[in-house]
C-alpha cells in the first residue's frame, strides 16, 4: 500500500472530480486542484473568504466554493482558469449551496429556509422555490439527474414537489401523510421516492414518481422511530435503521419487511466472524520518555494493532445513552450498501466502536468489526465489496469477505484519520485528517498487500 505525502486542507474540504482525474482541496481561502495520478498542482484559485463548502460539477469542469458566512458562492472553471463567477446571496444569507445535476445551475438555500434560489450559469437567470422545509434531508436529485424532490412545509403540512431538473418545471406536488417529514430519498432507479417521518413517529412512505402512494410502513408506535434510511444500489431493498437498534429491510415488490437485523450486545451467531482490534504498544524504555521523543511524537504514540478473531459468544461494549438528553446516542444511524448490493454495513450509536456487516443474500450477520475506539466513518469501495473505515487514530482499516486488516498510515506528525473517501475507480483512498490529507494508493491490494496475506492467516 502506497501512501502519498501529506497535504494541507481545511474544513475537510477535499473532493475528487466525478471523472476521477482531479483532486480539489481547500486550504483556508484557496482552492487547489491537483492531478490525482501525479499530485501536481494544476490550478490554484483564491476565493474571497474561507471556504465552507466545495463541490465539483457533474461534468468535472467547474468547482463551486461556498462561503456561507459571507453569503457568497464562487465558481471556478478548470478549462478556463481566468473565467470566474460570483453569486452573492446578499443579506438574505446562505446555508447551503449545491450543483444541479446538469452542472449548469446552482441551488442555494437561504437562511431560515426562506427559499431555494436556482441560479443558471448559462443564462444568469434566477428562479426561486418557496417554502423549502428545514429538515434532515429535504432535497434529493434522482441518480440520472432528471428529477429533484423537495420537501416543503405549507400551512403546517408536509408536501413534496418533484421538479424536472432540465427546466425546473414542477412535475408533481403532493401532500405527504407525515406529521413532520424528516427526509426523502430517490431510489437509485429514480422511480420510487422514500419519505420518512421525524423520529417521533416510525413512518416510512413510498411514493411513485407520479406521486402515487405505493406503500406505508410502520414497525412500531410511540417510541422513537426512524434514524436512517438507505436504498440498495439495485433499488431492490430499502434499509431502515431505527432507534430500537434494528435495521429493517423492505423489498421493492410488496414493500413489506423481509428481514430484520438486530444489533445485540452479545453475539452468539456462530456463522458471523467477530474481528476484534487488539492494540499492542511497542515496548518503550523509560529513557525514551524524554521530552525530545514526546515532541517528535509519532513513533512513540503509534501503537501496533491487529485483528483477532473471537469465537462466539462475544460481548460488544455498549454505552447506555443518557435518557434526559435529546437525540439519544442509540439506534442505527449509519447504513451503507456495498456497490454490488451484496453487503450492508451498519453502525449502532450505542456501540460506537463496532461496525456490523450483513450478508444480503443470506440475510444474516456476516462479520463484526470491534474497534478499540469509536468508528468515525466507513465507506464501501465503489467497485469491489470492500469496506474502509477509520476511528480517528493513525490507522486505516479495511474489511473484505476474505478478511480484515489494519494499516498504519506512515506519516510524520501523527496523522489521525478523521474521514475517508474512495476514489471512484476504487483503487485510491483519500484520508482526511484534521487539517491534512493523504492519498492512499492501494493498487497493490490485488497483489501482495496485507489484505491478501490475511487471507491465509484467517
Amino acid at each position, binding site marked *: 500500500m502506497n501512501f502519498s505525502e501529506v497535504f494541507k486542507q481545511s474544513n475537510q474540504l477535499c473532493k475528487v472530480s466525478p471523472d476521477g482525474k482531479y483532486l480539489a482541496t481547500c486550504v483556508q481561502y484557496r482552492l487547489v486542484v491537483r492531478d490525482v495520478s501525479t499530485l501536481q498542482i494544476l490550478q490554484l484559485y483564491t476565493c474571497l473568504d474561507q471556504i465552507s463548502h466545495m463541490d465539483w460539477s*457533474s*461534468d468535472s469542469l467547474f468547482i463551486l466554493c461556498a462561503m456561507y458566512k459571507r453569503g457568497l458562492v464562487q465558481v471556478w*472553471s478548470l478549462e478556463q482558469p*481566468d*473565467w*470566474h*463567477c*460570483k*453569486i*452573492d*446571496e*446578499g*443579506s*438574505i444569507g446562505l446555508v447551503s449551496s449545491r450543483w444541479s445535476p*446538469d*452542472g*449548469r445551475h446552482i441551488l442555494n438555500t437561504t437562511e*431560515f*429556509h*426562506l*427559499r431555494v*434560489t436556482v*441560479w*443558471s*450559469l*448559462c*443564462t*444568469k437567470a*434566477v428562479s426561486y422555490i418557496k*417554502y423549502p422545509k428545514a429538515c434532515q434531508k429535504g432535497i434529493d436529485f434522482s441518480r440520472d439527474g*432528471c*428529477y429533484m424532490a423537495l420537501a416543503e*412545509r405549507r*400551512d*403546517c403540512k408536509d408536501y413534496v414537489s418533484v421538479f*424536472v431538473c*432540465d*427546466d425546473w*418545471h414542477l*412535475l408533481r406536488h403532493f401532500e405527504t401523510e407525515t406529521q413532520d417529514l424528516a427526509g426523502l430519498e430517490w431510489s437509485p*432507479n*429514480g*422511480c420510487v421516492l422514500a419519505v420518512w417521518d421525524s423520529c417521533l413517529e416510525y413512518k416510512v412512505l413510498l411514493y*411513485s*414518481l*407520479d406521486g402515487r402512494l405505493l406503500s406505508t410502513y410502520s414497525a412500531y408506535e410511540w417510541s422513537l422511530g426512524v434514524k436512517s434510511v438507505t436504498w440498495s444500489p439495485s433499488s431492490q431493498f430499502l434499509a431502515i435503521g431505527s432507534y430500537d437498534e434494528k435495521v429493517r429491510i423492505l423489498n421493492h*415488490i410488496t414493500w413489506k419487511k423481509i428481514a430484520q437485523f438486530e444489533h445485540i450486545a452479545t453475539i452468539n451467531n456462530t456463522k458471523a466472524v467477530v474481528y476484534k482490534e487488539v492494540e499492542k504498544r511497542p515496548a518503550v524504555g523509560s529513557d525514551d520518555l524524554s521530552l525530545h521523543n514526546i515532541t517528535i511524537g509519532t513513533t512513540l504514540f503509534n501503537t501496533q494493532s491487529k485483528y483477532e478473531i473471537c469465537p462466539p459468544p462475544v460481548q460488544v461494549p455498549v454505552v447506555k445513552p443518557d435518557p434526559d438528553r435529546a437525540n439519544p446516542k442509540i439506534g442505527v444511524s449509519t447504513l451503507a450498501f456495498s456497490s454490488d448490493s451484496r453487503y450492508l454495513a451498519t453502525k449502532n450509536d450505542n456501540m460506537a466502536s463496532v461496525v456490523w456487516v450483513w450478508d444480503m443474500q443470506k440475510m444474516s450477520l456476516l462479520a463484526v468489526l470491534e474497534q478499540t475506539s469509536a468508528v468515525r466513518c466507513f465507506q464501501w469501495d465503489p467497485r469491489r465489496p470492500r469496506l474502509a473505515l477509520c476511528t480517528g487514530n493513525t490507522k486505516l482499516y479495511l474489511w473484505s469477505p476474505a478478511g480484515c486488516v489494519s494499516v498504519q498510515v506512515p506519516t510524520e506528525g501523527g496523522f489521525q484519520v478523521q474521514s475517508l473517501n474512495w476514489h471512484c475507480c476504487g483503487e485510491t483512498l483519500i484520508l482526511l485528517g484534521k487539517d491534512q490529507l493523504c492519498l492512499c494508493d492501494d493498487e497493490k491490494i490485488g497483489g501482495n498487500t496485507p489484505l491478501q496475506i490475511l487471507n491465509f492467516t484467517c
Partner: protein
Amino acid sequence: MPESSLDIFPPKVKDICSSSIECRPSPLRQSSQSSLPLHRNYMLSTFCTEKNVQECLSHISQEVSSLGLPPVWMESGGSSEMNVVAVLNCIYDLIQLHRRGLRTLENMEVEQLKSSSNLDYLQLTSTQLKEQLELSKRENTGLLERERQLQLKVKSLQNCLKNEKEEVQKLQNIIASRASQYNHEMKRKEREFNKLRERLNQLLVDKKEKKQAIDVLNNIGRADGKRSLWKTEKTEAKHEGEMYKTLLSDYDIRQRELLLENAELKKVLQQMKKDMVSILSSKKPTLKDDQHQDDDIQADLEEEVFDSSKESVELYCVHAREKLTNSIRLQWRRLKSHVERLDNQASLAQIGRSKNTDAVSRETHEEEMDRLKLEIQQCKDFIQTQHQLLQQQLSSPYDEEKASLLSDCYMLQEKERFRDEWKTLEEQRKIFERERRNFTEAAIRLSHERKAFEDDRATWLKHQFLNLSPFADSNKPQMSKSKSAFLISKTEASAASAPEKLIKRPSDTTSPTPRCVPLTSPSTAELYPTLCLVPENRSTKPKRLTEHVEESSNFLNGNVPAQHKHWNDREDHSSHTLTKEKTSSI
C-alpha cells in the same frame, strides 16, 4: 390341738367374710383393711373362750350358712360333736373364698390405680386443652384484629387507586389538552414564522443596497450543448411523457424480471409435476389394496401427462396456467396423501414389527426352550436306557464284580502280552546289536589283514622291483596295492551298511529312550579297544587311525539319546569319506 387350729381359723373366716362383704363398697375397703389386724388380735383374745364355745359354734354355723356354705355343725345327731370333715371343708371353702377375695381385691386395687392415674392424666389434658383454647381464643382475636386492619388498608388502597386513576385520567386529559394546545401553538408559531419569512423575504427583495447578484464573466453553454427551451404546454406534456416513459420502462424491467422468475418457477413446477407423475405411476402396481382409489387417479394422470405437452405451447394462456396449477395442486394432494399413507403404513408396520419381534422372540424362545427341554429329556432317557441295557447285558452273564475282575484280567493279559513282545523285541535288538558288532569287528580285522597283506605285497613288489631294476621306487607299487585294498574295503562297507539298516529300524522303534544307552556305550567302548588292539599296524598307518579315534571320541561326547543314529550316520559318513578319499587319492 384341733382347738388351737380352730382358734386360728375363725378369724380368718371372719376376715374373708368381712372382705367379701366389703368387696362391694369399695370406698370402705381402705378402712376395713386398716382395721383388720386389730380386729384379728382382738378376736383371738375375745371371740371364743371355754365358756362360750357353744355360742360361738352356733354363731359360726349361722355365719357360715349365711355365706351359703354347708353347715359346720349338725345338731340332728343329738351329739354336739363337731363334724370335722364338714368343718375342714368349710375352712377350705373359706380359704378359697378368702383367696379369691384377695385376688379380686388386688385386681380392684390395680384397677383403681389405673383409673386414678387415668383420671390424673385426663385432668392434665383437660387443663392443657383449656390452655390451648385460651391461646387459640387469643390468637383468633389477634387475627380478627389484623383482618380488620387489612380490610382498612385495602379500603385505603382502593381509595388510593381510585385517586391515582383519577389522577392518571386527569394527567391524560392534561397531556391531551397540552398536546392539542402545543400543536395549536406550533401551528400558530409556524404560521407566524412563515409570515415573518414572507415579510423578511419581501423586505430583502425590496432592499436595494445589498441585492442578490450573479457576476459571471461570460455565460457558459449547457452541458448538452442545446439551448434552453421556452416553457410551454408542449414542454409540460413532454415532461409528463418522459416521466411516464421512465415509469413504464421501470415497470417493464420489473415485469420482465418477474416473467423470467415466473418462467423459472413454472419450469420447476413442470419438473415437479413430471416427477410426481412418475412417482405416482410407479407406486401404482405396488399398492394393490387401494386400487379402486387409484383408478380414477390413473385416468387423470394420463390425461395430465397428455396435457403437459400441450401446456408448454400455451404457457401464457390463463386457462392453461390455471390447469397447471390445479393439476399440480391435485397431484400434490395425492402425493401428500400417498406419503401420509405410506407413513402410516410404515409406522404401523414398525409398531407391528416391534410388537411382533417382541412377541415372536418370546414365543420362539419359549418354543425353543420347550424343544430343547424335550430333547434333553429324550437324551436323558436315551442315556438311561443305554445304561440300563448295558447293565442288563453286564449283569446277565456275570455280576458287577465279575465284570470288573474280567476287565482287569483283560488288561493284565494285554499287559503281559505287550511285555512279552517287548522282551522278544529287546532280545532281537540285542542280537542285532551283537551281530553288528561282530560285523564291525570283522571289518576291522579284515582291514588289518588287508593292510598286512598290502604290506606284504609291497615288500614283495619292492623285492621284485628291486630285483628287476636297481633304482626302483617303493611308493608306486604300494599305491597300487592300497588302491586295490580300498576297493575291497568299499565293498565291505557297503555290505556292512545293509545289516546296519536292519538294526537301525528296530532300535529306533523300540528304544528311543535313554534305556538303551548302557547297551550302546559298551559297544563303542569295545570298539575302541579293538581299534587299539592292533598296535602292530599303527606304525604303518598312524594317520588314519588317529582320525578314527577322534571321530569316536567326538561321538562319545555327543548327544547320548541320539547316539544310535549318530553312530549309524557316522558309519555311513565314514564309509563315504573313505570312498571319497580313495577317489581323490586315485
